[in-house]
């Protein structure tokens, strides 16, 4: 289980790299219009971050299959808990808030990198 702070700056950096500059991710006024206190993280930032946290611990593996369902948005400057559980054929990953609300859930399969 890994706790990670999802900062507004990290969201901004992802927005620039991905060119997904939708105001809901970057602009407080746009977030407020959507009934949110702060801009929200990109779902794909969280999915990418989950794979990065796993690969950081397993650097000789690459992901061959990866599925994720996005359940609810997470606002900037929140803590996300990444939980990884292995079964026989996949690694299951669940992202939750500190209150236990599920943000996203999925699974991936890995292979050894043939260097």
């Amino acid at each position, binding site marked *: 289980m890994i706790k990670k702070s999802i900062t507004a700056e990290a969201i901004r950096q992802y927005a620039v790299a*991905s060119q997904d500059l939708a105001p809901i991710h970057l602009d407080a006024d746009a977030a407020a219009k959507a009934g949110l206190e702060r801009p929200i993280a990109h779902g794909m*930032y969280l999915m990418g971050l989950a794979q990065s946290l796993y690969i950081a611990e397993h650097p000789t593996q*690459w992901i061959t299959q990866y599925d994720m*369902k996005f359940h609810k948005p997470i606002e900037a400057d929140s803590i996300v808990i990444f939980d990884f559980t292995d079964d026989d054929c996949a690694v299951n990953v669940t992202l939750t808030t500190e209150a236990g609300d599920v943000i996203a859930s999925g699974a991936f399969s890995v292979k050894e990198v043939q260097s």
Partner: protein
Amino acid sequence: MNIVRHQIHMTAEWISDYAQSIEAPMQRIKGNLIAPSTMPIIFWKTFDIPWLSKGESLLHGTQKFSYQAPITAGMTLDCELALTSKVQKEGRQGKLTFYTHTLVCKCEDELIVTAETVLIRVGDNHDKKEHNS
């Protein structure tokens, strides 16, 4: 027809920039950088997608990637993005429209990755939409 095609050249710099944005460790195969598994989602921004319009946000419902081989720096990918289905359902928030897209990328006619993206529009139907996630 709801299909667009685009050729994408993978540079080490582009992979590195994307990897840094998601804090991904740099991985290599035969000396070449491997793109993080989620990177094909940013290929969307290289397409001109006529069935989507700017200014409207869609929810990102699900995302899938299936690889035959890693994407590595130096590859030139022939990519095809297609709107493969549009399904309407009634949800608690009213009408929901699910748009399923498939992105297929090949290198020298060999399949590298297939990605499926489901975007959701909440509310009444419109002719064009834009994804936002």
